[in-house]
């Protein structure tokens, strides 16, 4: 026979194992220890009491709800180039461009909608943006509403979201 064959020992043939009861006793010892520990100090149970308790381990790379950034002078950083809408795999970004009057750039969005019910939170829009105008660093992971319209984010709402990790203004358009 080949020396590669490794014979694994079969268990369950000894009297002790056939009796079942010693094994059940060992198992009950483990489960009872957990039960006793948790009953005597139920706050030590490692569960998150959501929603009273919120997660604290959201990292800066977490893709949360989108926001539109500002420039240093508080004007909108977006130049309505449609790169994000083009990159979007679920076609949930709707932009209407208009001429820009404040002298910063030529274009700006007149309206900017993201349908978060369609969005898959892939982050391609953030990658595509040449102006660092759209970001997903709000840290918002739960979104609730009473109707479908509540989930379509407009320009004003997207501008009002704050970054959760200290980077407020756009890096590309200062």
């Amino acid at each position: 026979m080949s020396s590669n064959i490794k014979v694994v020992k079969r268990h369950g043939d000894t009297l002790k194992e056939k009796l079942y009861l010693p094994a059940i006793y060992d198992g009950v010892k483990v489960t009872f220890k957990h039960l006793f520990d948790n009953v005597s100090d139920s706050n030590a149970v490692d569960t998150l009491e959501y929603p009273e308790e919120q997660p604290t381990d959201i990292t800066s790379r977490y893709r949360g709800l989108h926001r539109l950034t500002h420039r240093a002078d508080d004007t909108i950083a977006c130049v309505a180039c449609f790169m994000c809408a083009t990159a979007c795999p679920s076609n949930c970004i709707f932009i209407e461009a208009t001429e820009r009057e404040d002298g910063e750039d030529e274009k700006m969005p007149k309206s900017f909608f993201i349908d978060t019910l369609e969005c898959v939170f892939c982050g391609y829009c953030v990658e595509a943006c040449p102006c660092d105008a759209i970001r997903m660093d709000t840290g918002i992971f739960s979104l609730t509403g009473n109707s479908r319209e509540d989930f379509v984010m407009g320009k004003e709402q997207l501008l009002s979201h704050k970054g959760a990790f200290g980077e407020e203004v756009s890096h590309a358009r200062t």
Partner: protein
Amino acid sequence: MSTFAIVIAVVSLVLGALLALLTIPVLVWLERRVASLIQDRLGPNRTNIFGFRLGGVVQSFADVVKLLLKEEYYPSHIKMGRWLFMLAPVITFSAALLAFMVIPFADTLMIDGEVLRVQALPVDFSLLWYLAIGAIGVLGVIFGGWLSHNKYALLGAVRAGSMVISYELALGLSALAFVITYDSVDFNAMVQWQSGVFWGVIPAWGILVQPLGAIILIVALFAETNRNPFTVAEGESEIVAGYMTEHTAMKFAMYFMGEYVAMNTASAVIITMIFGGYQLPWVSTETMLTHFSTFAVALMVAIPLVVALLIRWMRKNNTVRPTVSTDGGRGFETKVLSIALVVMTLFIEGVLLYLGFFAENPVANTLAVALFQVAVFVVKLMMFNIFFIIIRWTVPRFRYDQVQRLGWYYLLPLALFNLLVTAVVVVGVNA
């Protein structure tokens, strides 16, 4: 029959019904809580009425309301035997419920020369009643599964049938050994036999007198209740929900509740037959009645200790971690419950003080002892139910052929051997 006898009979019946029915929601909650605590989770603890969550028991009542309001769906492919399809869950449920009714909750009361049993059904053939009625429960399972005209349900019913032939013989034979030992088929006589001692100090509990018979009885009763490790009639991984696949809403709830009543009944039978029933070890009813003042003083010391421990536990555990924003009224609940417990303790202390030292009323003393025995019984019942639940979340399931193998190759010969040894010993002792 005096008025007193009628009152005792009614109270026993109500007590039996309450202990069987009111424990269902408690057991459902207990199962979920114990399971989650064993698995380092918390389990249902949110549902509350005016901030009173009682650890989450309220959840079960919400579940009952949900099940009552569900659509009564009726599978249209069942053409024949609709009435039996509907009746099957009721058979299982009522068999488990009726089997519970012969459990004695306290010792037989001797008042003014009258003998009053504290048993919902005051009969003296309790064990036979339990074996007969308890075995009917599986008929509901078989009917329900067969009439569903569904392969999973049919397989579940067939497996339930195979279970019955696996454990019933061992159950009957081990029970027979106990009948020989106790020389009675009356549960109350069994408990009275167990309140004695043997070899001077060891309490004559069935588990100590007949360890082998006790183990066989416990295993067989686990099989009878269809609980882990013997859940062969239902199995999510192989046959969906087994025999109850086609049953919905209250029909399902009947099976579900029947399972818990059966578990409760099995616990009660195990306690009554092998764990001394409503008795504490070394303390028989006569001892408590003749030394009533001592008994009262012992209780007056013990009850505040238990209540103090309970309140301390509640103050520590009915709270939330500091990281949680609100405690959802748990602090208020702890306060109210603590006050209620203290008031109850003071009331009981007062009654015991009066009965033990100022009133010389044998009837009141008898009743006080009976109440104490009911309390002991309930505590033992709950402890054994928790044992059932722990076993469920510890042991993996047997295959149905393994159950048959266990029943026929191991339990049956052992039970026969035990019966033989018991008979020889009993004849030898009596000769």
